[in-house]
């Protein structure tokens, strides 16, 4: 089931999503997005660049944003925009917790604006906004 625009109210919280981040999670995401930068799979290389370990690539951060949005809204929600500001990196053996809120609803265009963040124990990995188009719902269908 997908939420309809009539199901929502400003201030509604999205269902949180927690990712238990391991080296496997980071490497799987990098390869699936076709990002072979060594900092995302080679610990020795990452250390040579001043990082304590490999870290999640931005394509993966964006991928998890879309999963977070459609896990909550349902599979027929259409992602129109994902705008993020990047913060602390995500290293293995950490958690990445996505939370979000409905910030505005435009019934005429069936569009909902979301504010979201993904945090780690070291601070925010990303903060941002997103737009989704949802089914209109209602008695008139």
């Amino acid at each position, binding site marked *: 089931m997908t939420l309809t625009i009539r199901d929502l109210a400003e201030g509604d919280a999205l269902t949180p999503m927690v990712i238990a981040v391991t080296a496997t999670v980071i490497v799987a995401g990098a390869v*699936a*997005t076709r990002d*072979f930068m060594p900092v995302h799979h080679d610990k020795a290389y990452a250390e040579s660049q001043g990082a304590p370990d490999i870290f999640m690539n931005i394509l993966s951060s964006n991928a998890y944003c879309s999963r977070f949005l459609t*896990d909550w809204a349902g599979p027929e929600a259409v992602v*129109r925009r994902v705008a*993020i*500001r990047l913060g602390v990196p995500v290293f293995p053996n950490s958690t990445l917790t996505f939370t979000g809120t409905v910030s505005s609803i435009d019934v005429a265009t069936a569009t909902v604006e979301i504010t979201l963040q993904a945090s780690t124990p070291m601070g925010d990995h990303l903060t941002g906004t997103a737009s989704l188009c949802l089914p209109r719902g209602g008695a008139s269908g």
Partner: protein
Amino acid sequence: MTSAEPESLAQRLEALVGTPVGPAGPSVGPDPVNQPMIRHWAAAFEDANPAYTDPAWAEASSFGEIVAPPLMLQTWVLPTPIITGIAERGGSPVEIEGSGPLGVLDDAGFVGTLASNSEFEFERYLHLGEVLSATTIIESISPEKRTRIGPGHFITWVTTWRDEAGEVVGRQMFRILKFRPELAGP
């Protein structure tokens, strides 16, 4: 004409605004939008959205057929990497001709790179079999700014993805900071 006078860094950066990053023409995706890569992506992110991998569900849905995850947009047009030498190339998947804006700033001592912002907009979802191309243009380079990690310049580029008919399917604004690392004070 006083050609002996070297160009200032500001002049060299200014000249880069509006120019393409990477090859002069559009980059074309090495493979069309396809189910195996979508399935691999969905598995990696444990994204169970049936619009991406369940043809029967997708046919009966408002999408009418399988759609690609919107945030895979960038992935379709990344070059096939040359694995040998990738570390020596600083992680670049292929050889890059010329130094571009990053090289100009590296040469001026702004050797650190920090990703700052990403903004994706999607005009429509993609279907299996579509071939995409992408063009990336430098939109702006800021004057030198003082940041908490050192002085640097923000570089903003915009990538536009098009379908085979030339219609825009999505865009990404991406901003990085190229900075001169400062040692921590006492």
